[in-house]
């Protein structure tokens, strides 16, 4: 008896006991479905987190140095470092942040964070301007009193949106607005729209900052971050000769931690769902045992006609395997559609992962074979005389 005939027999048996087969498969459908849903959703959530981090600069490395009287690093060193490592680093900007009161006539915002940056900052942080331009090299070189503002600032200080070229006072000093950042978060306070950018040279002077200690480096991508961190560490250590004076951090290292956490979580949840596969396997074993009892006479007839143990064994194992594989396939379809559906509702781009499909399908077939073995062995071991006599 070959495999194909085994499948034909199994199919006949499944079809002739539709209700029972469906109920038996239900366990497998739920088990496989939930594994796919959980793994898919977790993957979706992870992707969502990664994406959000990418917006925040997944390719960026932040550096904070503490300059001492004898040893120090300044922006010229940093620019030179970047141009010396062109295969890893794209650009760098010094960052000088300071809180000032900003005013337009009587309208004012207290303790507004002013970020002093280089011209590279715009590209590094994917800033989109709705109008005007970003701070340029000339502004920085000449410490010009120009600024780029977010829509929150515009709405707080002006009655009109048409503010390009207008002047605001930062800490009493007049700054010309040269650009406006496109609204991204409904102009809420504290959001990305609540921002003021100015030349770092100007802000450093206004805040009496001597040597600049904060920098943001852009690498060519997430995969360069690790190398970049190492290069930076070596370079800065050479300059400052003290690890405590150097602080290097990146989103990527945080992300790696998050990645690890979510995949552990996904494995744990998937494993819990996997327990239902085990329960489904027991269901299959149960129904196969019933089936063997019911079909004792059939087994006797087959044996009297010359079926060997392995013929009967394979017939029942294939039947159990087919039920669970069929259930598993339905479970995959069910899980895959549900994971996309739930993903849409939750707002996560969740999709069934190829890994989880292959894994849960093979587990379901494997479970069918393992749990089908015991009943099949029982069937194969039946005495043909007793089996023939049973009604």
């Amino acid at each position, binding site marked *: 008896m070959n495999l194909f005939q085994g499948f034909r027999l199994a199919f006949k048996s499944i079809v*002739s006991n539709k209700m029972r087969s469906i109920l038996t498969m239900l366990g497998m459908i739920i088990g496989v479905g939930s594994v796919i849903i959980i793994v898919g959703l977790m993957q979706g959530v992870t992707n969502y987190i990664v994406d959000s981090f990418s917006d925040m600069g997944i390719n960026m490395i932040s550096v904070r140095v503490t300059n001492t009287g004898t040893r120090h690093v300044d922006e010229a060193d940093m620019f030179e470092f970047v141009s010396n490592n062109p295969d890893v680093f794209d650009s760098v900007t010094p960052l000088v942040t300071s809180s000032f009161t900003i005013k337009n006539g009587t309208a004012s915002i207290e303790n507004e964070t002013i970020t002093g940056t280089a011209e590279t900052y715009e590209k590094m942080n994917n800033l989109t301007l709705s109008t005007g331009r970003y701070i340029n090299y000339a502004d920085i070189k000449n410490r010009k009193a120009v600024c780029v503002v977010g829509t929150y600032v515009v709405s707080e200080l002006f009655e009109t949106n048409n503010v390009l070229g207008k002047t605001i006072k930062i800490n009493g000093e007049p700054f010309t607005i040269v650009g406006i950042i496109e609204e991204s978060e409904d102009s809420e306070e504290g959001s990305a729209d609540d921002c003021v950018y100015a030349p770092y040279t100007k802000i450093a002077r206004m805040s009496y900052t001597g040597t600049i200690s904060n920098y943001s480096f852009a690498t060519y991508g997430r995969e360069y971050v690790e190398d970049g961190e190492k290069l930076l560490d070596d370079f800065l250590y050479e300059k400052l000769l003290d690890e405590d004076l150097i602080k290097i951090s990146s989103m990527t290292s945080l992300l790696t931690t998050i990645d690890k956490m979510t995949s552990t979580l996904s494995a744990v949840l998937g494993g819990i769902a996997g327990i239902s596969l085990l329960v489904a396997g027991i269901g299959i074993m149960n129904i196969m045992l019933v089936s063997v009892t019911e079909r004792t006479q059939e087994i006797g007839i087959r044996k*009297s006609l*010359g079926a060997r143990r392995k013929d009967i064994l394979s017939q029942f194992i294939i039947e159990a395997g087919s039920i669970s594989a069929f259930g598993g396939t339905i479970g995959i379809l069910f899980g895959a559609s549900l994971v996309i559906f739930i993903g849409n509702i939750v707002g996560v781009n969740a999709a069934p992962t190829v890994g989880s499909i292959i894994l849960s399908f093979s587990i379901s077939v494997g479970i069918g074979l393992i749990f089908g073995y015991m009943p099949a062995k029982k069937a194969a071991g039946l005495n043909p005389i007793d089996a*023939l006599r049973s009604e």
Partner: protein
Amino acid sequence: MEQGKIEEKPLIELIDLCKIYVTGDEEVRANDGINLKIMNGEFVAIIGKSGSGKSTTMNIIGALDVPTSGKYILGGIDVSQMKDDELASIRNKMIGFIFQQYHLLPKLNILENVELPLLYAGKGKAARKEAAMAALDQVGIKHKWHNFPNQLSGGQQQRVSIARALAGNPSLILADEPTGALDSKTSKEVLAFLKKLHDGGTTVVLITHDHSVALQANRIVRLYDGKIIFDGPTDEYIEFESKLDNNLYG
């Protein structure tokens, strides 16, 4: 000469055959020293009341069971010590069963039922169909090949089971109460068919408790309490039976 010698070799040889069943403390000697030779091409009826040991004998002859002691030689092969799978192969190649309850598989159609022994013999699809169709043709039911057993009458079902027994071209047809579930007219048809098989050279062993059925055979073996109390031609049996003490042998 050579041909004649082969004819003389028994198909079935039972030597001091004993089968003992133990139930609790009780020991039942279902077969108690049976010696029997059946030649190729014979038509033998094994007859006996229930409890006489005829079912046990039939199980052993049919290679469904092995004796506790003694020997069973089928076609020159000692099958008395064989393992399950070896017995299965003997059944498959050498024996065609006809059962009282037909024992057709309800979920398979007639053709698939008849193909079963060929399937277990490892025959290919085309060869199976050809042999099964030929067997169905032989019992005159070829046109119903796609029907299912429950769509056929009892007589037709028994004919299908005969076709199934014939399909593997066995040396021995073993019929266990083949007419037990049939009316007298159909019974006659089935018996006539077994006779026809015998006329064609097939060895037929018929197990029955019904004298009128047994009388269709050429030779009768009567069992009582696990022993053979008569073994001879049918006409001698009629004489034997008339002298039999009915109180003793029931």
